[in-house]
């Protein structure tokens, strides 16, 4: 039933997108942390 309407593919795509967003957020957070650390050192 789910396969029939392509919901499984949509779920998989959403899951993959969710993971990408989490990983990208983590990378951006670390970059922000590094910039913040440099700023702290230079204060």
């Amino acid at each position, binding site marked *: 039933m789910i396969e029939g309407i392509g919901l499984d593919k949509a779920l998989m795509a959403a899951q993959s997108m969710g993971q990408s967003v989490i*990983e990208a957020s*983590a*990378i951006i957070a*670390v970059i922000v*942390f*590094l910039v913040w*650390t*440099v700023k*702290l*050192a*230079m*204060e």
Partner: protein
Amino acid sequence: MEGQKLKKQALTKNDGKFSNLFWYAVAFSAIFSVWAVMNPTSLTTTLWGLIYKFHDNFNWLVISMPLIICILSFALAFSKYGQIKLGKKDEKPEFSTASWLTMLFTAGLGVGLVNFGVAEPLVHYLSSPLGLPGGFDKVTAAKNAMALTMFNWGIPAWAIYTISGLVIGYFTYHRGAKFLPGTPIEEGFKDKKWGKGLGSLTNILAAGASALTLAASIGLGVFQVKNALKAVFNWELAGVQSSLIILLFIFLSYTIPAISPINKGMKIIGDINIYLVIGVLIFTFVIGPTRFFMGSILTTFGETIKTIVPLGFNVYLFQDRGWFNDWPLTTLVWWVSWTPFLGIFIARISKGRTIKQIVLASIIIPTLFIIIWFSVFGGFGLLNDIAGDGSIAKYIAENPNDVYLSFIMVLQQLPAFNIIGLIFIALVVIFLATTATSAAISLSMMTSNGVENAPPYRTFIWCIIMVTIASANVVTGTLNGVKAVAVFLGVPYMFILFLQIAGMIRQMRKDYKEGAL
């Protein structure tokens, strides 16, 4: 005078009781140790999964981190801050330069020099994208393997250790703060609300990480000694009893120097260690193919200089992730996981030395020695594959998770193996003892409210805790769990190290402006 008296009284008072940090650190180590014993598979799978996830997303940070730290260290050394002395302006170094370098070197390198002296170049030769799988001919693959080994063991590793010592040393000896890993954060960011809390958290993480890292090393040491006894004397030591007897020997070998005064215990064991290391090196150099070794040393030296920058900015895009995760990235994080106690130890032995002296000596001299060591032993292993029977490379290819025997295989090819094999066993035990001694001293200082000379009985308690964790894992055969924890803790500590460095630079700039330098 009054201030000195008060400080002395405070320290004496604190010496008499356990700081809260002691109990937190014990609880922290206990949770992971129990988890490691009860459910090693779940712990190992969970933590390695997280470590690999971290490597996949942050390989760009891990691989470039040591070079950035190295550039920063040299910039500090040659800046106006380079002349800052860890201690009073007229303070003389507590240890002679030779003893200082010996202690620094033996505590920092540890038994890995023996475990991976032959194996590491061969692993890169056999499985890295710059080795045979990358389509390189044997000679180029061998050269690349040495360059990769030097990247993991040379300047990058020592830059990480050096900065971890400097951040503690600056605050303790220059500003009179406590010998605690959290001090650079607590003192450097005194005006920030989060400074104190994060400093305390750092102390707990550092003490727990140190105890677990060392327990893993001691536990592994038991199996290494067993392997060595089998190879040298053909003693088949199966069963828990023999493991516990070896563990007892290791325990005594690090506890006796740890509870002795540092200028006796640690100095003597460090000296014995360096004599044995140099003895084995000279023996192999003279008895083995000396002409080849000279060429190998020069080539490795050249490759190290030529490749250090490109390798620090290479994340092997579109290439094998398994090797990259398991070797360069894990090794670099592993060095970071050693910094909580090595930083304290390096700071403790570097009193009376300037930042410039510490940076130059502790990065350049150990790296030069490592070039010679790997050129001889690793070079021998590579030579065996290119011009010999290839038995060592074959063994490593067939036993990728148990490469430690490769060092003995090299020694077995030399004459008088019975004697050199015995020295090899002594070397393994002494290396473990030296590292465990420095860790017990550092742990004791950390959990004695950061005093310079912690009471021996507290050091003794840490010696007992480390051997207890190790024995639980040896008996249950669950060492991989503790090993995974030790590597895993290096990840958060890397970010702490960045903050510690920022705290130190911030404080230096402030002190300079206020004319306190």
